């Protein structure tokens, strides 16, 4: 008998057909309602050597390579509360299963927001921490990595631990929040997190300009990125066929934005728009493999050109050096990744297959300091029971 199934008052059931992780069926689904329950579940799973994969809304669960096993899905969707909002201190905390939209709703009444774009609708706090997915506004506000100021976690062995806190400025102890962000559930289970908030600006206006190709959009991007008009976002959207669009977001006071829009529009030959192309969403369809390509700023348009020449649809933050590219069926993904990986690495970045990597393709690619990362994983999760195989170097 598994220790996990004997826990009283904790919802543990057999997995249904839909309980899969990147195509891999799970055996059990546990649905805790508190960090204490998460702790008890993890302790039990640890005793029984069960592999655990966390899940909340499952919007990005199929991202990252398939785990090597999946005994238990730890379903955090019942842990979905906004725990604390201190408007005067511009902070909020929420449980991992809380949808981002619910957090936004809670803080909006105070004229505030968590400055993370909802790129994938329905994303939860836990999912955003696991993937560090970012949208256009990262130019101005950074990503979940920069906005998390404290995390509460449960380790693979069930021990509850927190780091950081609820004040923005804090250097006491290691910043484990950053270590959790982007770790795809492989180090510990994040149960809740504190974030810093920003005031919702009075005005926000998008501008759009077009160019025949990414390469020819280079000067547009350069002008926007290096402008003292301070754009909150500089997005690029480029297809293998059709024009390249540059979208620029200006945020601030009504008076200020109006004047800045005029100046930026003149400089770029741009017109105002309701939204960037495709709103905030990722390029391509859900069924298509998705790449994340990072590079130094000066190489963004050239890399976008390469991607487009390969037949990919590219969209992303030209202002931060982070692009997403969708790979249609007609394109050989292995070849495309090879080429883009070489070019982005040479430009100080990396190419990662976020979603839909074929089994024979290394989704993460070569990663510096991998030995040290392995050593960190071994300390946190010595038995490799947390989402094994999903992360860099097969961790």
């Amino acid at each position, binding site marked *: 008998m598994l220790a996990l199934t004997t826990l009283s008052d904790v919802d543990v059931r057999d997995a249904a057909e839909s309980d899969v992780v990147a195509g891999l069926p799970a055996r059990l689904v546990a649905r805790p309602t508190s960090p204490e329950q998460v702790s008890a579940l993890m302790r039990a799973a640890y005793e029984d050597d069960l592999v655990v994969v966390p899940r909340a809304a499952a919007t990005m669960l199929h991202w990252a390579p398939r785990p090597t096993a999946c005994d238990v899905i730890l379903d955090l969707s019942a842990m979905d509360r906004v725990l604390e909002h201190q408007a*005067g*201190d511009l902070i909020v905390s929420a449980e991992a299963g809380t949808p981002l939209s619910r957090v936004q709703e809670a803080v909006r009444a105070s004229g505030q927001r968590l400055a993370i774009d909802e790129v994938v609708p329905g994303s939860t706090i836990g999912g955003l921490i696991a993937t560090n997915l970012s949208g256009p506004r990262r130019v101005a506000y950074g*990503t979940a990595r*920069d906005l998390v100021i404290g995390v509460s976690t449960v380790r693979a062995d069930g*021990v509850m*631990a*927190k780091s950081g*806190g*609820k*004040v*923005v*400025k*804090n*250097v*006491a*102890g*290691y*910043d*484990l929040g950053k*270590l959790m*962000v*982007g*770790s795809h559930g492989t*180090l510990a289970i994040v149960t809740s997190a504190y974030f810093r908030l920003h*005031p919702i600006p*009075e005005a926000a206006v998008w501008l759009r300009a077009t160019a025949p190709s990414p390469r020819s959009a280079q000067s547009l991007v350069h002008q926007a990125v*290096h*402008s*003292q008009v*301070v754009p909150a976002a500089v997005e690029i959207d480029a297809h293998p066929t059709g024009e390249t669009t540059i979208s620029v977001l200006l945020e601030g*006071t009504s*008076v*200020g934005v*109006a*004047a*800045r829009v005029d100046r930026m529009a003149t400089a770029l030959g741009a017109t105002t728009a309701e939204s960037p192309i495709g709103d905030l969403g990722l390029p391509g369809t859900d069924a298509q493999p998705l790449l*994340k390509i*990072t*590079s130094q*700023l000066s190489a963004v348009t050239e890399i976008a050109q390469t991607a487009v020449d390969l037949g990919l649809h590219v969209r992303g933050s030209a202002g931060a*050096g*982070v692009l997403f590219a969708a790979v249609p069926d007609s394109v050989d993904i292995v070849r495309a990744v090879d080429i883009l990986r070489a070019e*982005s690495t040479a*430009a*100080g*970045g*990396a190419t*990662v297959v976020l979603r839909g990597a074929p089994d024979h393709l290394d989704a*993460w*690619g070569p990663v*510096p*300091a991998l*030995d*040290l*990362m392995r*050593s*960190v*994983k071994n300390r*946190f999760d010595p038995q490799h029971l947390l989402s094994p195989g999903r992360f*860099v170097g097969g961790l």
Partner: protein
Amino acid sequence: MSNSSTPASARLVPEVGLGSVDVVRARLARELPPGALITDRTRLRTYECDGLLLYRVTPALVVLAQDADMIQRAVRACSDARVPFVARGSGTGLSGGALPHADGVLIVTSQLRTIREISPDDQRAVVDPGVINLQVSEATRPGGYYFAPDPSSQQICSVGGNVAENSGGAHCLKYGFTTTHVTSVNMVTPQGDSITLGTRAPDAPGYDLLGTFVGSEGTLGVATEITVRLTRSPESVQTLLAGFRSTDDAGAATSAIIGAGIVPAAIEMMDALAIEAAEAAVACGYPDGAGAVLVVELDGPREEVEHEFAQVQQMCQEHGSFEIRVAADDEDRAAIWRGRKSAFAAVGRISPDYIVQDGVIPRTALAAVLREMNELAERRGVRVANVFHAGDGNLHPLVLFDESIPGQGDTAEEVSGAIIDLCLEHGGSITGEHGVGSDKAHHMPKMFTADDLDTMQLVRCAFDPAGIANPGKIYPTPRLCGERPGKRTEPHPAQLAGQAEVF
């Protein structure tokens, strides 16, 4: 924290045993050029403390590194011999983070001062760890960029030190801390390997070891090269100085500004005693009779700054400011900042001795905490001057005392500690930018549980299984790296048997 009193025969546990620094000395004498190794006792004493003068330890050996290779050689020698090492930049730290180890090697990086690359197009600069913070901005400003983190010591502190302490400064309310502005670090691990964390681009794949390294106070290795993010120089900067009758009024004005959705580049507050000190030192000409002053700086596109600056002035007036001075030019601005930035040192003019505290509170608790702090100080018969980053709740109470009066030093230390407790009671932190270092390790258990601290040690053990990187800092009693996580919280048997000391 040295185990020099332990008989050599008792040093049995290899994971924690201290090796002999003599071995390191002999090896580095062979491997390093003459002049890079300091062994002379008198010269070693020059390095016995950093900006926190309270603790002094003479290092057994000092390496004046001239390049990254020398740092690596020094760390390798330490690693092979299981000898502790401590890295030090300009030595401006205020928490004893660079306090040497008596049986260890102090690796000084201050001679590594080359700015290797400036690329405005990429918004990046690549610098040596010993490069002075302000020099990065001076070198990049002609290209339209600057380095945003600006600790008050920016004229002398090193970027490597900024990385170690994740130090902030007045402008981090708007622009974020050092960690936001570092994209990559070449470092030497405590095992002597040279590796790169992060990339020139954001979001490097893998665990964010860089985010963990920044602010780890030298306990995870030594930075040898740092790639920083540059920030576009603002088109317009406006700075004002507002005089208030009381800190309550100045605090109310701060809340009004933040509440209006304005994110100033900086909001700094000084109370009457801090103003008195600054006047005595640099004659900054702050408003007469002010019980508090606010320095508010806005920067950005000129239309935004103009609009919001008018609002800020109005809010200051509405909340009782009796005098507002607007800096007409850069010189005026520098004069306003001179008072603020010199405040710590200036306190020496009005008190023979003082302790600089560095606590954080949720900003909304400001009025309550200041009141309680004053009551505390009055009760104990010491004075507390306050200079702080009002926007983010980072307090720097300066506890004034006179060492020549018996018992007053102890009282000041107690008050300083009680202030930290006050910050924690209000949901704050024991340090906002100075670090935990040697000074506050004993406060860590007030903020974190044993399990929290154990979990941080998992990272430490991954980087530094032998526990030789800046031992004794940050953590009061780190556990031994050979232990299984989460299975034990009591002391290690080797400790109880007197065979090993955890450092």
